[in-house]
């Protein structure tokens, strides 16, 4: 398909304004750009047909099963999109919050922030939550900054290290580093979980905290989490919960109860806000008792005559211009109120049921990476297949030709030729069966005609693309 720039025709226009109804004014010559930006000159139909057809080259949840491990590609309810379209939310200027005089004009938004934060806190057993962080990784950074503030406030200037299991998502070490910490990686056990001993071995008085994901990215619940938390607290270190997998335990266990001090939520995973091709998401932080005084501000609190803003005394400051990705909170709030106490618990139950069903159907044909029971996702290693010349990548591409998005591959890094499947609770048994049938068909092809899989995909708008050429030519704009 041509680029929209290739469709440009001199003088063509889509949207225009009416004639100026005030006198024309010259913009000062010294401050003027020398030539107009070469934006495309196209008509509205050009634009509409271009992007409509671009969209048709994508797989999305609404069109395809999308079992990307760790990404929680659950169905995004249309209800949430409908409430997010309400002008009372969508067209509200956030600077109404910056002056008390305007607060009566945005009480609905304040209420929504307040109630969403309260629900998130209760769901995870945290004392409070803040919607400011804009995505999961931003929540991690905020959380680790809170840990830093805590230690600084307690005069523990030595605490410059964060422990992170080797199975952790890449954002964990990256966030810790950007928060100014040294990162020490802790090996997972051969069974795929974190052992107290391994943490102990890495423990020093410089350790400010440990970042854990639970269930971890192997899809396994961390059985020693309680003991690890106790040990850390003993050493005045704090425990961070990466909430990317909260959907596996929602309504069953709460990070706060497990001993975590701080966490982020991924509203775009657990709470079904759409992923939008990679964003926007929303990554609120939640904190327990210890970190309450440091939360970012301002915060919405309930006053005698309505909602007002306050900033915690020892606040780390501000990580967003206003209240983070507010419109994603609107969607997540709708989702939480819709599902309610039972529905949210069912999220975990069926997410785990579905992942285990896939595990059960595939475990003879593909080698599970671990023997423990998987939670919301199951991880296989395609190492045996790789020996037959078919890599995880080839399996992924073959699935595209079956009309399924591929699972996550090559993550977690701890598993060779990793194939990480997260079905989510919103997919039906028929879909899981069709997917498993495809995986089993691919397994058979690996035995009979492995080479054919290197050609996949053949049904997509393009075949496998030359990434080396891309990096060498670095043609990133036209």
């Amino acid at each position, binding site marked *: 398909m041509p680029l929209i720039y290739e469709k440009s025709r001199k003088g063509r226009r889509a949207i225009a304004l009416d004639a100026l109804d005030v006198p024309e004014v010259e913009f000062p010559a010294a401050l003027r750009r020398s030539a107009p930006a070469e934006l495309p000159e196209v008509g509205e139909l050009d634009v509409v047909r271009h992007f409509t057809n671009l969209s048709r080259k994508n797989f999305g949840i609404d069109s395809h099963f999308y079992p990307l491990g760790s990404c929680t590609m659950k169905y995004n309810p249309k209800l949430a999109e409908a409430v997010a379209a309400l002008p009372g939310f969508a067209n509200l200027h956030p600077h109404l919050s910056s002056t008390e*005089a305007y607060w009566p004009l945005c009480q609905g938004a304040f209420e929504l922030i307040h109630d969403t934060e309260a629900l998130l806190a209760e769901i995870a057993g945290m004392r409070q939550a803040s919607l400011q962080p804009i995505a999961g990784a931003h929540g991690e950074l905020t959380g680790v900054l809170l840990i830093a503030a805590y230690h600084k406030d307690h005069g523990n200037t030595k605490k410059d290290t964060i422990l992170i299991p080797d199975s952790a998502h890449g954002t964990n070490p990256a966030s810790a580093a950007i928060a100014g910490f040294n990162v020490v990686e802790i090996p997972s056990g051969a069974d795929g979980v974190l052992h107290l001993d391994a943490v102990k071995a890495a423990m020093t008085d410089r350790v400010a905290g440990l970042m854990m994901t639970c269930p971890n990215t192997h899809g396994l619940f961390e059985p020693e989490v309680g003991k690890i938390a106790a040990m850390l607290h003993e050493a005045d270190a704090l425990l961070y919960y990466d909430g990317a997998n909260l959907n596996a335990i929602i309504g069953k266990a709460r990070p706060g109860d497990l001993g975590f001090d701080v966490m982020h939520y991924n509203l775009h995973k657990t709470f079904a806000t759409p992923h939008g091709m990679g964003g926007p998401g929303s990554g609120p932080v939640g904190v327990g008792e210890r970190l309450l005084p440091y939360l970012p501000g301002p915060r919405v609190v309930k006053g005698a005559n309505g909602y007002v803003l306050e900033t915690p005394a020892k606040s780390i400051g501000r990580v967003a211009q206003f209240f983070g990705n507010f419109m994603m909170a609107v969607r997540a709030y709708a989702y939480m*109120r819709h599902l309610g106490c039972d529905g949210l618990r069912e*999220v975990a139950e069926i997410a785990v049921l579905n992942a285990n069903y896939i595990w059960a159907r595939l475990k003879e044909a593909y080698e599970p990476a671990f023997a423990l029971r998987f939670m919301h996702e199951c991880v296989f290693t395609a190492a045996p297949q790789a020996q037959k010349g078919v890599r995880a990548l080839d399996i992924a591409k073959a699935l595209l030709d079956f009309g399924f998005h591929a699972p996550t591959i090559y993550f977690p890094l701890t598993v060779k030729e990793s194939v990480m499947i997260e079905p989510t609770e919103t997919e039906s048994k028929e879909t899981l069966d069709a997917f498993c049938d495809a995986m089993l068909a691919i397994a058979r092809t690996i035995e009979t005609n492995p080479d054919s899989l290197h050609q996949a995909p053949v049904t997509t708008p393009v075949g496998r693309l030359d990434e080396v050429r891309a990096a060498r030519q670095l043609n990133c704009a036209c």
Partner: protein
Amino acid sequence: MTWVPTTADERKEMLDVIGLNSIDELFAAVTPDLRAKSWDIPPGLSEMAVRDLMAGMAAKNASSLVCFAGGGAYDHFIPAAVDALTSRAEFYTAYTPYQPECAQGTLQSIYEYQSAICRLTGLDFANASLYDGGTAVFEAATMAVRVTGRRRVACHRSLSPIYRRMLETHAANLGIEFTTGDDPTGAACVIVQNPSFLGSVENYTNLSERCHAAGALLVMSFYPVSLGLAKTPAEMGVDIAVAEGQSLGVPLGFGGPWLGILATRKEHVRKMPGRIAAATEDAQGRRGFVLTLQAREQHIRREKAMSNICSNEALCALRALIHLCLLGKEGIQEVARHCHAKAEYLKKKLKFATLLNRAPTFNEFAVRLPINAEEAVKAMASKGFVAGIPLKPLNAGDPEDLLIAVTERRTREQLDAFALALEEVSCR
């Protein structure tokens, strides 16, 4: 409310295949001592009830007042086609394009977005998006630190107090020294905002020369719509240009999701944070697009990555791209001309107030009113206007100071009515 599709019979069948008797057995690893100690969540509501509930909440917000607030977020017109196209499910329910063959819609649109940002700023490379305009300033600062190896960042007075606060919050433990002013000596970068937070437009060409002479970078936070008229960051010698992209077709939405824009010169691309799409080919020679230079990113480089960003604001970047395509080469100039002319018109009408900007302005300016600005905006609200942003609460001015923004949406009648009302309110 049951939200999942799985019927009771199916649960049973699936458990049979798994070899278990109950769903609870799946959670055996979550031993009783680890179970939730509280679960005080209200029961579910039907879609109908949730929509009524939230329509009620939304109705408590005064979103329909005539808006003169800016301060980094502007009430620009968004053509209907932007919503119509970004609400295509294949866009908004897709994820990061990890499998390029089934994500060419996403990847081509990122490439086109990057191109639009480069054409707008005059710079060589743009990334696929950052969180917002504030975090983009932080990313630019740490990028400058990486490029120069220096650990001082000079923040020019033009910079938004909110961005400044965010910058210092994010960088709290990075051992970066933040100073105020524009002295590039020994600095990683000087950060300016153009137009300034108070709306003034400057030519920073001299400053960029001074920066480069001192081995520092010049970082500029710009207002995308102003580039319909204004000198580009590239023309002024800027090394890293960042912006809040909300003004490009993204709804105000009480603060987000918005769009962080970042563009830079060729020599710094490998130090740039965030995703980048690039053109390439498949084995049949068909053009296609992939993510590239991923070795900069957290999923490969972990603690050594250029940034921790993973999820970004892709759908907002698509909005910006579509918005820019609909406006086109001519439209972006037209919008900028209208914003500027209307703001100048209003400026002239506010004779009873003192203009605080010494430099020319684009579509936003600050005035000192005869009365307290918070009182003024309260009175103006009852007349149907969001009259601007009082500067004192942001520590950006005196109690009488008010920041006023004007977009192409404001009609002459609205401007006349606004001026009259503000005069009544201020001089009664």
